[in-house]
């Protein structure tokens, strides 16, 4: 084979011919096609807007979890931690009827640490005596069945119990007795906040109860 034969290129003559322009649409058909395309674009824009709103809302839900976590751990002071738990419950979850209990040494009773909007108990709650004290061992937040009775004289029935858990052990419980009027029920972010309290409020309270370095020495 000669040098020329080896490197010669033969083009398909049809590729060199100019493309035939498409047949022109009549105006009515083109209008229909354009309207259909506009409708498609509007639907896509709506879908993207809804996706954007959903993402924005989720971002702000995560901001609430971040704020709650940061506030719980910013100071090693029991009074401060209880104040922050109160702020989270009132302003982020949406309740002004709650109580926070801690398991007393020996684990035989629950001692009240803080409450709002309910008549506080006058003495510790014996372990296992009611829905609240039984919730300490439950490990996970739970909604109490309607019809449950109050755990002490003058107490309303609990609606949500959030055990406070450190290393798998219940050390206390947060009890919600009712939500604010404008809050019809718990939303997914509220459940995430309560679950955050379950672990992080528990850790923060537990740490503030540990002896300081000076005391330990």
């Amino acid at each position, binding site marked *: 084979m000669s040098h020329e034969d080896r490197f010669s290129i033969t083009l398909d003559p049809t590729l060199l011919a100019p493309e035939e322009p498409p047949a022109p649409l009549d105006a009515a058909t083109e209008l229909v096609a354009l309207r259909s395309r506009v409708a498609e674009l509007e639907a896509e824009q709506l879908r993207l807007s809804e996706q954007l709103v959903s993402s924005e809302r989720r971002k702000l839900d995560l901001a609430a979890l971040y*704020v709650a976590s940061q506030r719980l751990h910013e100071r090693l002071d029991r009074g401060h931690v209880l104040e922050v738990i109160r702020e*989270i419950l009132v*302003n*982020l979850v949406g309740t002004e009827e709650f109580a926070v209990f801690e398991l007393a040494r020996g684990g035989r009773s629950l001692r009240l640490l803080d409450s709002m909007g309910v008549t506080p108990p006058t003495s510790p709650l014996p372990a296992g005596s009611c829905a609240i004290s039984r919730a300490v061992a439950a490990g996970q937040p739970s909604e109490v069945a309607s019809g449950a009775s109050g755990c002490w004289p003058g107490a309303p029935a609990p609606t949500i119990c959030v055990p406070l858990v450190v290393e798998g052990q219940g050390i206390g419980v947060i009890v919600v007795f009712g939500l*604010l009027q*404008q809050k019809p029920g718990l939303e997914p972010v509220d459940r995430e906040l309560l679950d955050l309290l379950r672990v992080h409020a528990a850790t923060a309270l537990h740490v503030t109860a540990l002896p300081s370095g000076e005391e330990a020495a």
Partner: protein
Amino acid sequence: MERKKILLVDDSRTVLLMEQLILSRPAWELITVSDGAAAVEAAQAQRPDLILMDVVMPRMDGFEACRRLREIEATQAIPVIMVTTRAEARSVESGFTNGCSDYVTKPIDSLELLTKVRSFLGD
């Protein structure tokens, strides 16, 4: 372009942090105070374009602070959005009677708050 100023008033640092995260925008400057008396002072000093005001606060509550702001020439035109857990009709009416421009209940709906703030700031 000059940034719009928003004065955030709440005795809860948790709420102030949340509002700052919700409203964090390059075009907005956020100022925080923790009671109504400080809000009246800050409004006169800073001349914010909008105030978000809690109701239940020490020293001076939000209704009283709003009333005072309406009495001062330099601050009487600043729109005030009350941000509160109180959703009863009587409480809402009291807010408007004392001069607030709008009302948002807690827990704050982030997107609702953003929409209202943008509306008042013309963004």
